């Protein structure tokens, strides 16, 4: 069998011979370079979105208006949500996919390398536009990341057109990226890498990519209708012309709910790699994990209106969406139980990736429980649009998605950089994060139950104490992330040399490669058992 490039003389020259300088990054077609670009971009966006969260928390530190105007506060909330979802979490997963999938399935690179570069470089463009719109006259988007019509149409600031087109190109980027992942997984597996031998990270990403291709176009259609309603006189979301503002919510959440699973399924894959590695024991039920992931993905198309229980749907529809939503707990439970069963009677050690993975399981499950509570329609009438919801989704997103991304970084850093990260700093980062994050988000449950609405710049006096605590937790969690930044930089620049397989219990093709992984992965298809 030939190698990927050996037959090609002119290509041979480039082999393992990284182009230098800035242009290496701008023009690259290498999955590792692009993966690194995605990860760095995502971290940058995490800082930017986090800085906005800090503005939110600072304003909410006390009752009364101190720092920002209500209108600017709304812009902060909106752009914080948008940036964290589309700029931090999704690109981080795409970055991990780029780095890991070809290595894990024994492929030389992603299937469509030039398109891969394109899908990355669209992102900085999209987010520049989004951020620039904050500085325009009338301000940037201020209608929440869910941009409900008619607040986002008739009543929105002038800059809404830029928001719409930024979302459009961001969507193009996601779709192209997802197509690349699917094609890579379906078409590029090394001989012998059957579907049921693929690592779970690959499986979860395959399903995630399918969700992305299915729902990102729906988001594009949603923003298009917002555009025509605002600027071209259509009335999709206006009753006077025969439309319905609730139609907006249906279309948005048809995208939006699968979207939140897009932000968690790859995490499941990561955790399913890390828990067995540090338990030195095989994953308890591989195939049930695969089926559970697929069930979650399928169910995710049937539950969207659980965000809309208060919109006045007929009771039959409310019941349908309540039941379907509750059902999702079953496959998710299968996952949680599997991880616990994997740890059971293992031989556990607690390096930083494992710490984050354990915290993930506990805290994500707490977020899942509050999700289940939200699914119960009559009670959701009380929870809806309060800080209880904010607590729910930060538990699944921050201590879920973000923690899993951090776990992944620690786990694969040695493979990426060829150096071990500083374990002491890593542990410090973990403990600082895990404590502060709970101070940050746990009291939000109480605030919500006690009746504090979300998206408000000011609140009644009975919420003051908890808000102060939450803000303090927020600042502490923000500062803790600076430790992470230090770990990453230190590890990239040097440190103890990492062996090919730094973790005793880890499994997978990527650990057969030297650390750092060579510029081109699997130039010859590897042998698979």
């Amino acid at each position, binding site marked *: 069998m030939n190698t990927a490039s050996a037959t090609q003389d002119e290509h041979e020259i480039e082999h393992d011979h990284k182009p230098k300088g800035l*242009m290496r990054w701008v023009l690259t077609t290498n999955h590792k370079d692009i993966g690194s670009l995605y990860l760095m971009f995502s971290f940058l966006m995490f800082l930017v979105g986090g800085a906005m969260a800090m503005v939110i928390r600072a304003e909410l530190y006390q009752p009364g208006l101190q720092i920002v105007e209500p209108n600017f506060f709304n812009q902060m909330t909106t752009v914080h949500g948008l940036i964290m979802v589309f700029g931090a979490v999704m690109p981080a997963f795409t970055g991990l996919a780029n780095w890991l999938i070809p290595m894990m399935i024994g492929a030389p690179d992603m299937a469509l390398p030039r398109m891969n570069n394109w899908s990355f470089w669209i992102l900085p*463009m999209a987010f520049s536009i989004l951020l620039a719109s904050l500085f325009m006259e009338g301000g940037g988007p201020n209608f929440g990341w869910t941009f409900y019509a008619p607040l986002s149409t008739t009543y929105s600031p002038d800059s809404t*057109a830029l928001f719409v087109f930024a979302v459009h190109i961001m969507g193009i980027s996601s779709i192209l990226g997802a197509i690349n992942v699917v094609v890579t997984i379906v078409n590029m597996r090394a001989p012998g890498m059957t579907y049921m031998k693929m690592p779970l990270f690959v499986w979860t990403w395959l399903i995630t990519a399918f969700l992305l291709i299915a729902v990102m176009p729906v988001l594009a*259609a949603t923003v298009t209708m917002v555009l025509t309603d605002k600027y071209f006189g259509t009335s999709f979301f206006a009753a006077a*012309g025969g439309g319905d503002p609730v139609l907006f919510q249906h279309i948005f959440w048809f995208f939006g709910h699968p979207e939140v699973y897009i932000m968690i399924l790859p995490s499941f894959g990561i955790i399913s790699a890390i828990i067995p590695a540090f338990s030195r024991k095989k994953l308890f039920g591989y195939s049930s994990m695969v089926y559970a992931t697929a069930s979650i993905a399928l169910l995710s198309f049937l539950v969207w209106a659980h965000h809309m229980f208060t919109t006045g749907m007929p009771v039959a529809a409310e019941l349908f969406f309540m039941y379907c939503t509750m059902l999702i707990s079953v496959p998710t439970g299968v996952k949680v139980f599997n991880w616990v069963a994997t740890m059971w009677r293992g031989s556990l050690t607690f390096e930083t990736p494992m710490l984050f993975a354990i915290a993930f399981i506990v805290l994500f499950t707490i977020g899942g429980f509050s999700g289940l509570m939200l699914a119960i329609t009559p009670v959701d009438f009380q929870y809806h649009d309060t800080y209880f919801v904010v607590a729910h989704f930060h538990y699944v997103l921050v201590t879920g998605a973000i923690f899993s991304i951090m776990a992944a970084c620690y786990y694969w850093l040695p493979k990426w950089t060829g150096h071990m990260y500083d374990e002491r700093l890593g542990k410090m980062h973990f403990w600082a994060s895990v404590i502060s994050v709970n101070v940050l988000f746990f009291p939000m449950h109480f605030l919500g139950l006690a009746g504090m609405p979300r998206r408000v710049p000011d609140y009644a006096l009975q919420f003051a104490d908890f808000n102060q605590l939450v803000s303090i937790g927020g600042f502490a969690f923000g500062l803790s992330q600076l430790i992470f930044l230090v770990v990453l930089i230190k590890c990239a620049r040097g440190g103890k040399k990492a062996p090919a397989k730094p973790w005793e219990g880890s499994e997978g093709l990527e650990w057969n490669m030297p650390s750092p992984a060579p510029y081109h992965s699997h130039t010859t298809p590897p042998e698979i058992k």
Partner: protein
Amino acid sequence: MAQQQTTNYYVPAQSYWPIVGAIGLLFIAIGAGTTVQQIGSEASSGSWMLTIGIVIIIAMMFGWFNDVIVESDKGLYSAQMDRSFRQGMSWFIFSEVMFFAAFFGALFYVRTIAIPWLGGASNNVMTGQILWPDFEAVWPLVTTPAGDTTTAMGWQGLPLANTIILLTSSITLHIAHKGLEENNRKKLTALLAITVLLGVAFLVLQAEEYVEAYRHMGLTLSAGVYGNTFFLLTGFHGMHVTIGTIMLFVMLWRVLKGHFTPERHFAFQATSWYWHFVDVVWLGLFFFVYIL
């Protein structure tokens, strides 16, 4: 599939085209956004930027595809590579299907939920009674709740003709493809040319329909949800036909230059998939927008 051999997977070296494409999209997004904001004003900076963006993207397409063609001609592409392209294109078309699905979804929602509710159906009795007492819930919605009126587009005449044209074009394209596979270049060229002409004919008729709607029927983009769904669905479809026709035209041009072999003709294949997809969407449109 994994069992198939992984030979010679070609990983292209660095390329300028993606970053050019990203910059093109930047210009398009800012340009389109600004253009829309400048509607009704004198300023034209937006449309300039939009134009520049489109030019950049077109240039990128030519450059990028040219690279691909050159590489393919050099024989750098394995069968596996070809499969990647094909799968990529199929998923892309799937994403387009979902894009249209959202608009069809809006249409169905408006017809089966929003309008009946405005008329007082289901749990919205009071909506009808108090807010819109004079409103009559019918489809096509020729009188909006606010009282604006319009006329509905019939399915006979132009739309029917267009349906026949598109269906025919799908068949001609299929025969052209057969011709390519049989290495019958004459058949290929002739039928491909006919397909392009049919595409153009469709667009001309569609344009005429729009003119008719605007000039004589009072059916405009802003004429309530009937006009909204009508123009957005047919408009986006028309846009896809335009792109498809251009793609077909490029294919014709390449055929005339002697490109494609019976075994290797991914671009042709992709174009024809795209065309069939556009065709199927039209059938849905014809059925749900015009007839029902």
